[in-house]
């Protein structure tokens, strides 16, 4: 399996799937909160919709819709899975 370059969740486009690899966050409270919301390494989420100004963005996470700001999604790294791969 070829190794893939990790990308930020904030770079993923609407409609794309994204598999979370790691959360690179120093702030323990923010990291904990994101984990509690379901942004857990290994899980696959869907980019639902960017708001008109591009921030925040809604994601489908474990059956729930959750919106994140760029300052949060910037620290979530993983693999973009474009829809035509599916």
């Amino acid at each position, binding site marked *: 399996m070829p190794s893939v370059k990790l990308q930020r969740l904030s770079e993923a486009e609407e409609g794309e799937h994204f598999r979370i690899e790691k959360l690179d966050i120093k702030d323990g409270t923010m990291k*904990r*909160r994101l*984990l*509690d*919301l*379901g942004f857990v390494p290994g*899980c696959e989420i869907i980019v639902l919709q960017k708001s008109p100004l591009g921030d925040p963005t809604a994601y489908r996470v*474990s*059956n*729930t819709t959750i919106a994140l700001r760029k300052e949060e999604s910037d620290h979530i790294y993983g693999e973009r899975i474009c829809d035509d791969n599916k």
Partner: protein
Amino acid sequence: MTTNEYTVALAGNPNTGKSTLFNVLTGLSQHTGNWPGKTVVYAEGFFTYNHNRYKMVDLPGTYSLYSNSADEEVARNFIIFGKPDVTIVVLDATALERNLNLALQVLEMTSSVIVCLNLMDEAKKKGIRIDAGKLAEKLGVPVVPISARNKEGIDALLKTIDAMVCGKIKTKPIVVRYSPEIEQCMEKLIPRVKEVIGDAYPARWVALRLLDGDMSLLHAFYKLFPSKKEATVYACDGSAKSI
């Protein structure tokens, strides 16, 4: 026949059907109450089953109980300081992965827990099958599948609540183990915590929160204990920091 009154709290993620279950159990006899000093509201209601009277408390839905928000603080404080006889964790059976996070947090706080798998009708529709027995074995507490909206499984739930308050169910909640570094700190901290706050609170959980620098919990304890104890609580915090 004597009647006892027990308190049952409903905890869970947002939108898992807590209020629906609350209404099924209490009928329409609910009113809303305020947690002292907080503007966040939770509902209280009553019902009687097998000669016992129950006070139901419908807590705000949260993804976590680390008090990052007022809702989380209300739910957490009720479970710790309100000391419900039973805490029912209502899980969305169609999104167990996410929901179990909160269940594990509650299991660190109290051992009188019943896990309620709600929205079983939805789960079935989606082809999701859950081995409730296996889950109960792993979590160490009873697991009852229900569909609150269709009033399915309510009898089994009531029987489980009854058995739990009568002491007929011995639970053995799963213990989440942390990294060796954290476990070592806890080993030192737990005896100190017990010294200060006694056995009435879950020492392991309190120690974890102290290690995490949870100031809001510390403040809740200041309020609870007479001023002479403040110094010791501070000392406890101090030793948490020094560990």
